């Protein structure tokens, strides 16, 4: 079972590393390994094409981060965009946070559709005019021009993380946000770039005693004092910033009890939580570990409310998955707008959706061969053993280099974005 280098599938820089809709769903941002951000905008539905749903077209693209080398620590700093988070829109411009391993940046994306014409000191091409030839004064006039979308970096939040940033989360107060690395979480004010408050620090005095790292963190969607962070040991801690300045002591601790007789070498590795997301309602959190997705009720710490098997057939492949490092893949998970369906990715370009109400689940595939535009996605099935039916795929034929780690769900409609290595798929609900 080989896991070939991703670069065999085209330019490595094109590998998508994050996908995120903004709060209205009008914009969809992707970040990639090459440090670039591409923003798509949904077409306005025109009156004469009512039956045609708005499609997403490229709106803006810019280089967010560059590769760096920290000479003092001999550390290579990748330009890969780990996360993008949008700020809610407060004026005509759009704002988003993008981060690589070390630096968070606030980007402003704005439109320009007018330009001034008739300068006194410059001619139309921008060349300076000879002052001797200027005999009259004129007032420049704003004239319409072709729409231009500009992205400018408004803030750079640097030098606050010794370890690698895995998460950023905008607070519901819209004034602060947090950034989390393997051992620490910092709180920032959007206006201040030379200071940040450390709110969680789990670094032990002696690094030999290190037993767990922070894997993801997120603010509560409504309560600006509450946030959660997950660990590599499969636990989630909920913290209240009103309790103390340094939130090293959690308010709530979520952990599922483990049957000690089931413990194996792989237990801790596969229990490591790769993503944690609050539901839109703020009442639940969803966590993703290597083989399952779990939904937790904030009021019940001793076990999850629901557990969904993503690809349990991989349990008998753990040895190979450890050897080819796939066991360390970090899958994300997302809620739909009404918190009734959850979605996460798998291998072979498969992704899974679980309906929490009907308890039904489906496996779909994001691949060019199997989907033409406007075609309906066909459910897929992995065959575990014994007789394989015609349409099924056997576990041994799964392509482990085709992993869907990043997906996004439109905040209110049934539109999903799925990143399959270096390709982006956008699926919409069937229109009647």
């Amino acid at each position: 079972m080989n896991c070939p280098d991703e670069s065999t599938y085209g330019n490595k820089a094109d590998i998508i590393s994050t996908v995120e809709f903004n709060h209205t769903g009008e914009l969809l941002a992707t970040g990639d390994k090459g440090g670039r951000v591409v923003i798509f905008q949904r077409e306005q539905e025109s009156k004469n094409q009512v039956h045609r749903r708005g499609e997403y077209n490229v709106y803006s693209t810019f280089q967010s981060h560059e590769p760096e080398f920290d000479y003092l620590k001999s550390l290579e700093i990748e330009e890969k965009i780990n996360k993008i988070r949008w700020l809610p829109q407060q004026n005509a411009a759009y704002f988003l946070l993008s981060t690589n391993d070390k630096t968070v940046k606030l980007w402003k994306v704005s439109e320009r559709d007018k330009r001034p014409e008739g300068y006194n000191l410059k001619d139309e091409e921008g060349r300076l005019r000879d002052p001797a030839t200027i005999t009259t004064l004129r007032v420049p006039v704003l004239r319409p021009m072709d729409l231009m979308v500009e992205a400018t970096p408004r803030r750079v939040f640097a030098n606050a993380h010794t370890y690698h940033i895995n998460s950023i989360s905008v607070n519901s107060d819209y004034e602060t946000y947090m950034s989390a690395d393997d051992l620490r979480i910092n709180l920032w004010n959007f206006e201040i770039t030379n200071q940040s408050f450390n709110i969680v620090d789990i670094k032990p005095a002696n690094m030999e005693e290190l037993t767990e790292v922070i894997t993801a963190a997120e603010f509560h969607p409504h309560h600006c004092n509450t946030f959660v962070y997950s660990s590599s040991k499969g636990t989630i801690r909920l913290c209240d910033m009103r309790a103390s300045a340094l939130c090293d002591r959690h308010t709530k601790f979520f952990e599922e009890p483990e049957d000690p007789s089931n413990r194996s070498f792989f237990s801790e590795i596969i229990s490591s939580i790769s993503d944690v997301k609050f539901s839109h309602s703020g009442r639940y959190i969803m966590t993703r570990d290597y083989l399952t997705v779990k939904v937790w009720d904030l009021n019940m710490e001793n076990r999850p409310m629901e557990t969904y098997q993503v690809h349990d057939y991989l349990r008998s492949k753990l040895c190979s998955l450890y050897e080819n490092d796939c066991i360390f893949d970090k899958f994300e998970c997302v809620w739909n707008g009404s918190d009734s369906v959850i979605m996460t990715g798998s291998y072979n370009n498969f992704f899974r959706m679980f309906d929490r109400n009907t308890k039904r689940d489906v496996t779909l595939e994001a691949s060019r061969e199997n989907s033409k535009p406007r075609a309906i996605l066909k459910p897929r099935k992995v065959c575990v053993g014994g007789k394989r039916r015609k349409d099924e795929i056997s576990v041994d034929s799964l392509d482990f280099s085709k992993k869907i780690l990043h997906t996004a769900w439109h905040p209110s409609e049934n539109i999903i974005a799925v990143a399959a290595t270096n390709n982006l798929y956008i699926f919409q609900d069937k229109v009647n």
Partner: protein
Amino acid sequence: MSAEVPETASAEEQKEMEDKVTSPEKAEEAKLKARYPHLGQKPGGSDFLRKRLQKGQKYFDSGDYNMAKAKMKNKQLPTAAPDKTEVTGDHIPTPQDLPQRKPSLVASKLAG
């Protein structure tokens, strides 16, 4: 007395077989231990975590490099073994190992 020994042996064997049947994870663990007998006693413990924290670390000392080059003359410089154990001190990085500043002006194919 001689009759007891084969009984306990078969009970242990039976438990092992049961383990393999009821827990594919344990079977996989046995496979891994067979391939890498030196794998850390503390699985998923600090070794693994520390390696994770050190991601991206590359060392280059021009003094070491030039000394090694002079000593070795025509021979190849030692390179890090691609196995699961940590190698420190033996691997002398070459300039080729260090990251190149990549051209960043190429547009993403999604924007094309």
